[in-house]
């Protein structure tokens, strides 16, 4: 039989794990030194208190302040992860067990509760989980980069295969055109349509080639602001700005940077077009450029870590809109090739993908921030050549 008075002192001194004994009314009867140390109470402070006092009301555990009184007298509980609450209201993760003991008479019923402090283990678990997430993310990025490389290769392969038949078709059309001299108007029109179709197919193939990264950059020292103006001119010829207000805030003495002007203009056009298309009911576009010294290093695209070091001078280009913003589900897929929310006739879904690749080829960085209902801001970071950067 279990005689609590006989073992009370031994439990207090010699049991290493935090332990308490609770009576049939769920009041704390005794607390050992290890538990007092863990939860920060002095000897005697907990005696007679309801058992719930040392449990936290944590959402993370099924056993908590609000239900512990009901649960611990009902039978054995083994190794449940729960949280004790310290005197100064901190939560400590513990592995909790309890069992019901009966003494010499029926009223003599006790619940013996032990708990093992697992904060150390938890911390290691958290660190492991964080490390795992990091590795997984890096792996996902690598897989994505590999996939995109494969698509790029495929695209250039397909381009080659399609261009050969196109070459044959155009030669065939040329031959028939020459042979059918003094031809009827209908025939002439048909040849024109066929020629135009071959050209169109060729343009599509060229877009695919843009998509692959086969083309190299022609780098020259260029003025970012002039490129932004050039991009705006290009967009203006295609789009009416009736409901769109464009606000330009470019820094006048911005340092020149080594870029491929045509490629970068293509990026700006893509981004401005996206901004316009994000605001079907109209709105504002903010175009900004400035330079700054980086206070901390920045990782490059695909997690590359060799791009920006702290202290480096960079040029920042921002294109922001007051459109609908991007939902989290869409945000994840933004840079995926052939992903579009613009419907069948809206876009090919490679604009952002190509833009990111172009920025990556410049060893730059592109970042998107978006708040649903408020708008989206795209920032591009490009390095200022060192000698010039220090002169500016």
């Amino acid at each position: 039989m279990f005689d609590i008075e006989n073992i009370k002192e031994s439990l207090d001194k010699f049991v290493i794990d935090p332990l308490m004994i609770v009576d049939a009314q769920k009041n704390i009867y005794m607390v050992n030194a290890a538990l007092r140390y863990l939860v920060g109470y002095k000897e005697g402070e907990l005696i007679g208190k309801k058992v719930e006092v040392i449990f936290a009301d944590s959402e993370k555990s099924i056993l908590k302040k609000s239900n512990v009184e009901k649960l611990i007298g009902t039978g054995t509980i083994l190794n449940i992860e729960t949280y004790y609450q310290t005197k100064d209201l901190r939560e400590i993760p513990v592995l909790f067990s309890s069992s019901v003991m009966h003494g010499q008479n029926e009223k003599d019923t006790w619940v013996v509760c032990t708990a093992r402090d697992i904060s150390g283990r938890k911390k290691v678990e958290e660190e492991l989980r964080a490390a795992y997430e990091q590795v997984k993310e890096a792996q996902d990025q690598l897989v994505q980069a590999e996939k995109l490389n494969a698509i790029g290769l495929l695209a250039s392969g397909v381009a080659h295969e399609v261009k050969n038949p196109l070459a044959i078709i155009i030669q065939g059309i040329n031959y028939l055109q020459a042979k059918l001299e003094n031809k009827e108007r209908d025939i002439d029109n048909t040849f024109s349509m066929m020629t135009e179709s071959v050209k169109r197919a060729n343009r599509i193939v060229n877009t695919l080639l843009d998509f692959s990264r086969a083309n190299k950059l022609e780098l020259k020292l260029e003025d970012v602001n002039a490129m932004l103006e050039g991009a705006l001119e290009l967009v203006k010829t295609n789009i009416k700005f009736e409901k769109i207000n464009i606000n330009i805030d470019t820094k006048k003495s911005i340092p020149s940077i080594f870029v491929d002007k045509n490629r970068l203009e293509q990026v700006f056009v893509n981004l401005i077009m996206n901004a316009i298309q994000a605001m079907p009911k109209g709105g504002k576009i903010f175009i900004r450029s400035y330079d700054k010294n980086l206070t901390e290093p920045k990782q490059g695209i695909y997690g590359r870590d060799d791009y920006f070091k702290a202290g480096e001078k960079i040029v920042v280009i921002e294109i922001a809109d007051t459109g609908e913003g991007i939902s989290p589900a869409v945000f994840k897929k933004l840079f995926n090739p052939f992903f579009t929310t613009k419907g069948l006739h809206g876009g090919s879904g490679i604009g952002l993908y190509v833009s990111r690749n172009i920025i990556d080829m410049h060893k730059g960085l592109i970042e998107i921030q978006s708040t649903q209902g408020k708008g989206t801001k795209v920032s591009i970071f490009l390095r200022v050549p060192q000698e010039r950067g220090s002169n500016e």
Partner: protein
Amino acid sequence: MNKIKILIIDDEEDFCKLVKMNLELNINFSVETAIEGKKGLELAKKFKPDVIILDIMMPKMSGFEVLEKLKKDTSTITIPVIMLTAKEDIDFQAKAAQLYDELYLIKPIDVVTLKAKIGEVLKRRGIEFK
């Protein structure tokens, strides 16, 4: 006036045929074709073309290998070559230009452009055609 002799080396047989048909619409042209490098090299020696139109991407022997052999043979070393590629890859173009300062064209190519390029190549050699 002697006919202007063109040799086309391209693994796309239909392309060869059609270019031949197109060029020979002009009676001043005489065109021979080969659908692989080895045959092309033989024809280059026998036919002694004024210009060779050479595809880069061919199985067995690539256009660059053919070009290299043409330029290492005294009987074909002086023949100008127009490289053809379906791959819009600057590397190819750079390689072609570096090798022997030859011209290149990107497929698909229409007859007007092709003739203009042939004219350009011949003009460098002091030959004019109508």
